[in-house]
């Protein structure tokens, strides 16, 4: 595990990655297992009394079907929130965090290029995202019988988890690229928060507001769940947009990183 920046990064993060995986899986399983309580006539009636605007804002329009419930709650809010926070933490620490606490000097003074450090840290971030979402996917598969969500089917559950992974990779790339370009975690956290909040509400509310339709079309959440992976399986075009944008963000960050001074 000590042979490269890539493996060393994963090795150093092994404990925190385990914690992220446990947290994500725990929340995911907990909320998924509430489904039998939502799937009742009383709940349906209660939901119908909610104002339509609120239902739109939360993405709750089909919350009583298994795919609708999972897509709106577990995979619609809580798991993305956790994965985005994790993306900010992992991506922000990769370059900007190391730089802020003075550790980057030693690495970069070794025979390894800045591009190589950036891309290896990026690869570690991608693997981390795939790892924690795989844990979530497996856990959801395991409880899909008792939680009465097995009508979604294993292939679509995997699709949901993979889409979540790509959402994390997109935000991780944003954090990594911006951190590499600026060297400052505060900027990374701010940018991730703004993109996440505007993206989330833009995706849910954009279409209901005159002149703001375009917000949904550029929201990462649109490419995350707009194609309803829990119903329709993997949406390659959406995943390609998330991954492609991530690649561009990392490249842009790398171009700036390669030119600038490393802070003490």
């Amino acid at each position: 595990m000590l042979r490269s920046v890539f493996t060393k990064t994963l090795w150093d993060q092994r404990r925190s990655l385990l914690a992220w995986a446990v947290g994500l899986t725990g929340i995911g399983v907990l909320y998924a297992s509430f489904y039998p309580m939502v799937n009742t006539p009383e709940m349906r009636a209660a939901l119908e009394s909610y104002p339509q605007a609120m239902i739109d804002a939360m993405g709750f329009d089909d919350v009583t079907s298994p795919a609708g419930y999972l897509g709106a709650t577990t995979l619609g809010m809580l798991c993305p929130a956790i994965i985005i926070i994790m993306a900010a933490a992992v991506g922000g620490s990769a370059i900007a965090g190391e730089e802020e606490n003075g550790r980057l000097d030693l690495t970069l003074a070794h025979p390894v290029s800045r591009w190589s450090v950036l891309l290896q840290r990026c690869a570690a971030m991608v693997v981390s995202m795939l790892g924690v979402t795989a844990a979530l996917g497996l856990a959801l598969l395991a409880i899909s019988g008792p939680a009465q969500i097995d009508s979604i089917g294993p292939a679509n559950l995997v699709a949901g988890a993979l889409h979540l992974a790509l959402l994390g990779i997109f935000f991780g790339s944003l954090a990594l690229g911006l951190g590499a370009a600026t060297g400052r975690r505060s900027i990374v956290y701010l940018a991730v928060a703004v993109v996440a909040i505007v993206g989330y509400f833009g995706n849910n509310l954009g279409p209901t507001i005159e002149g703001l339709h375009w917000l949904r079309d550029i929201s990462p959440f649109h490419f995350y769940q707009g194609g309803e992976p829990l119903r329709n399986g993997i949406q390659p075009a959406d995943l390609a947009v998330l991954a492609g944008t991530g690649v561009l963000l990392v490249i842009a960050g790398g171009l700036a990183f390669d030119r600038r001074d490393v802070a003490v």
Partner: protein
Amino acid sequence: MTEMIRTVGLTKYYGRRRGLAGLDLEVRQGETYGFLGPNGAGKTTTIRILMDLIRPTGGQATVLGEAPRAGGTALRRRVGYLPGDFVVSGGQPAGELLTYLGHLRGGVEAGRIRALAERFDLDLKVRIGSLSKGNRQKIAVVQAFMHEPELFVLDEPTIGLDPIMQQRFLELAAEAHKAGQTIFMSSHVLSEVQQCADRVGILRDGKLVAVEAVEDLRRRAVRRVEVRFDAPVRKDAFGKLPDVGDIEVEGNVLRCRLTGRADPLVKALARFGVATLTVEEPDLEEVFFVYYRGEEGTDAA
């Protein structure tokens, strides 16, 4: 090629703050070069430019004949670097970090790491986070020396080390010197570089104000001498001694400043019974003061 490091008119500004203001530096092959200056003079800035961590605002720098940026990874493979502030993740044992850094360099024999660690009484199994500052600095020394590079660039290498470990470091530096390796090390303590350097460059306000052979510097350095005699002495017994100034006598204690050879003073003292003799090593500020007193005047003009 005889110049291992060369800079011409090197400048670095951080916004409006000065880092370097036209540095001309030349480090020859095989020499140990002490890079001296007070805090904030630009020592770390110079070193970080040489390691391509920051880019100069103006002027040129070459390391082993290549510009730091163009030389890239191939150049850094040939250089051992010790950062001024050695910060690493505390969760890992020292041995793990050193193995990893060795791999980044294309592999370092485990035996070499062990031998160096033993030399500095460094326990490779202990988590870095639980080590004292001095013990962490030992890791910094080991990682710089473990791969036997052609050139060492060391930023205050002995900071935090106790006197015994400082001595071990100086021995290590002497061995590298003997093996033909070039050492460029910064310090703000003259006595430290005096022991191992061939030449010393003095940096002030981002410029090199003097380059001296250590021998010359030592000869010119001012030492404070305090002598306690068995019995009171008279000041005029030490009337005119070469290289001795500011003589003060108080009862049986004599204080003076010695600026050159000690011999005439010692001979003069030997006529009396000497109880104790203290010679204070010159500090850098004092060397500056004596050395550049003349220049201060021209600066002001």
